[in-house]
């Protein structure tokens, strides 16, 4: 369906046809649309534009080229669709709505609902979610609608269970609050265990790194000043026509993390460009194909449309740190990322994409084809998007508690100690966990009271015979959430606290956590309690 394009021959064709183009570098939307309608528009994909500017310069490209098509195809969690199912007879005011077992949000009128792509099936969590329902609908498959309602005088029905296809729905409208990230961080993992994240499976000890975003062909990279992309801009969305309806959530244009809120009629989209996704032990999402035509109105747009991967810089973040501000380990360009190897702390790390470049390029080509056919005119934005919005962190009303705030000194022994020594130590210190260290205080293992009991039953004598060498540890900078998740995962009750050099600093576990459980009343509660106490006195 796509015509493969020989870049050089098309460039030659262009240079011939260009001699008749106008001398002025400024163009208007009207001029460009007129050319599109008459079949005279010069449309290049973002890749072709880069080559064209390399060969002919920005000034010439601004005169010659009318439109540059861009594309991206990545997992975009902030996506979903509004549906209207029509009324059953007797009618129902839906209260709970499920589509193929995936719950849709219902907080609107009787038979409207919004299905989000990260919502997972109750029967098949981590495998099937809202994005898969949307893909199934686009493939023409029937999906099962199950809804419950509380009876009202106007909506007497309480339950409905019916199989529906996309054609059976009145409206199916994709509305994605955050799509088309201008760039994204590259993710890696410093810890000793595999992490399952929305950035894919991150192997331990920096064994791999992943990144997302289409780099030099991504829509928002080609118009980073948001000169043409604004509210009302007509776009390619999921294989159909869509529109920008505002800045995306978490839009942060000054930091080159601009995003878009977009919409489009799902009924004219295609399962080729909207694909359900499921990330192991993380959850579901949806791959969204999105492309934007950039009108080359002036030299500045010709320049930004020729920005290359090497000029697009992003951060490598350590996803091993479960905090809002993950440590930045390196700065790399998209050219580095696409090369397959980046250096992190002096180590060569395998780096791979999570978003499909082959599909992103397909979108650039497809959108180009639509424009050349005269099917797709450029829409002038009715309002610009904010170029100054900040992305604030969540307001916090509680001080975050860290391991460093709660850990206590650990009772320690060495590998050469006898179990009798350890038993005495347990009685003396009243600790359930004895941390095994070497002479320098480095972590060698751990022994619990249960291990000692078992050893007595098995007639074992030495620490080295029963020590657990693979130990779950935390650092003082970890949050209590991090600690509790690790303890729960390993089904244990305490973990040694170590520094970066594996030196034991102390221990933290159930005993230390219990002390933190006593709730501290907040200011409002405190004032209320004091007022009540005063009232009682009177």
């Amino acid at each position, binding site marked *: 369906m796509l015509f493969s394009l020989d870049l050089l021959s098309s460039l030659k064709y262009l240079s011939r046809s260009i001699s008749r183009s106008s001398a002025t570098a400024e163009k208007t939307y009207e001029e460009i649309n007129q050319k599109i309608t008459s079949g005279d528009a010069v449309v290049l994909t973002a890749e072709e534009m880069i080559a064209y500017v390399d060969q002919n310069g920005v000034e010439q490209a601004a005169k010659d080229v009318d439109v540059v098509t861009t594309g991206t195809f990545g997992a975009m969690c902030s996506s979903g669709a509004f549906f209207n199912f029509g009324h059953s007879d007797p009618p129902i005011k839906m209260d709970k709505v499920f589509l193929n077992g995936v719950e849709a949000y219902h907080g609107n009128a009787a038979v409207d609902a919004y299905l989000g792509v990260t919502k997972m099936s109750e029967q098949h969590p981590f495998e099937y979610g809202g994005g898969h329902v949307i893909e199934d609908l686009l493939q023409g498959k029937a999906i099962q609608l199950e809804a419950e309602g509380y009876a009202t005088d106007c909506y007497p029905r309480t339950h409905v269970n019916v199989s529906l296809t996309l054609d059976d729905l009145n409206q199916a409208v994709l509305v994605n609050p955050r799509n088309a990230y201008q760039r994204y961080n590259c993710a890696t993992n410093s810890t000793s265990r595999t992490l399952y994240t929305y950035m894919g499976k991150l192997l331990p000890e920096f064994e791999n790194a992943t990144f997302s975003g289409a780099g030099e062909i991504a829509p928002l990279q080609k118009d980073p000043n948001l000169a043409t992309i604004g509210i009302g801009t007509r776009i390619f969305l999921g294989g159909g026509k869509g529109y920008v309806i505002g800045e995306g959530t978490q839009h942060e244009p000054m930091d080159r993390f601009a995003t878009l809120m977009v919409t489009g009629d799902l009924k004219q989209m295609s399962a080729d460009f909207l694909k359900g996704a499921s990330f192991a032990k993380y959850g579901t999402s949806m*791959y969204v194909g999105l492309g934007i035509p950039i009108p080359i109105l002036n030299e500045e747009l010709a320049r930004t449309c020729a920005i290359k991967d090497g000029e697009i810089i992003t951060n490598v973040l350590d996803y091993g740190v479960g905090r809002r501000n993950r440590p930045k380990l390196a700065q790399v360009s998209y050219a580095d990322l696409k090369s397959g190897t980046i250096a992190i702390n002096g180590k060569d790390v395998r780096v791979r994409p999570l978003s499909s470049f082959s599909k992103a390029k397909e979108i650039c080509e497809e959108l180009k084809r639509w424009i050349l056919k005269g099917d797709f005119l450029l829409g002038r934005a009715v309002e610009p998007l904010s170029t100054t919005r900040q992305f604030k962190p969540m307001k916090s009303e509680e001080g975050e508690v860290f391991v460093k705030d709660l850990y206590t000194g650990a009772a320690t022994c060495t590998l050469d100690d006898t179990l009798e020594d350890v038993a005495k130590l347990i009685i003396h210190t009243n600790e359930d966990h004895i941390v095994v260290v070497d002479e320098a205080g480095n972590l060698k293992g751990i022994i619990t009271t249960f291990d000692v009991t078992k050893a007595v039953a098995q007639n074992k004598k030495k620490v080295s015979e029963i020590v657990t060498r693979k130990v779950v540890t935390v650092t003082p900078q970890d949050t209590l959430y991090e600690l509790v998740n690790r303890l729960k995962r390993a089904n244990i009750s305490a973990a040694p606290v170590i520094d970066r050099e594996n030196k034991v600093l102390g221990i933290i576990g159930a005993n230390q956590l219990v002390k933190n459980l006593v709730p501290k009343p907040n200011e409002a509660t405190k004032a209320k309690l004091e007022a009540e106490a005063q009232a009682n006195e009177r």
Partner: protein
Amino acid sequence: MVRVNLIIPKSYFETIKPKFAIEMNGETVTTTVIRSTFTADGAHFVVDVPSDVDPEEFIRVMSSEGAKAFRRALVVVDRDLCIECGECTAECAYEALVLDQDFHLVVNKDNCTGCRACTDACPRHCITVH
């Protein structure tokens, strides 16, 4: 160099030398062990046979000794589902799954060791390893 899968019963496994040297027609063939998985019944080795040894002969000799030896493409990608995102290539340490210069997925079946690092990582659930 050819990669061969060997599923070996415990009885045989106990006589194997650490470097996986195998007596073959009076000569010692030393293979490179790429991966080993041990089970209660024996072990599954993935080995590289040196290029001066005929892999078919190696497989014949190993089979006659009671091992299940096979040279088989292990990894299969369902192209109808695949979107060529590249996530599997981030997990594959053996370059069995790679992206070419145009970012299309290339499956080098002969490199697959059957480690299955790719299968659960695929966001489209389209990789199977036999």
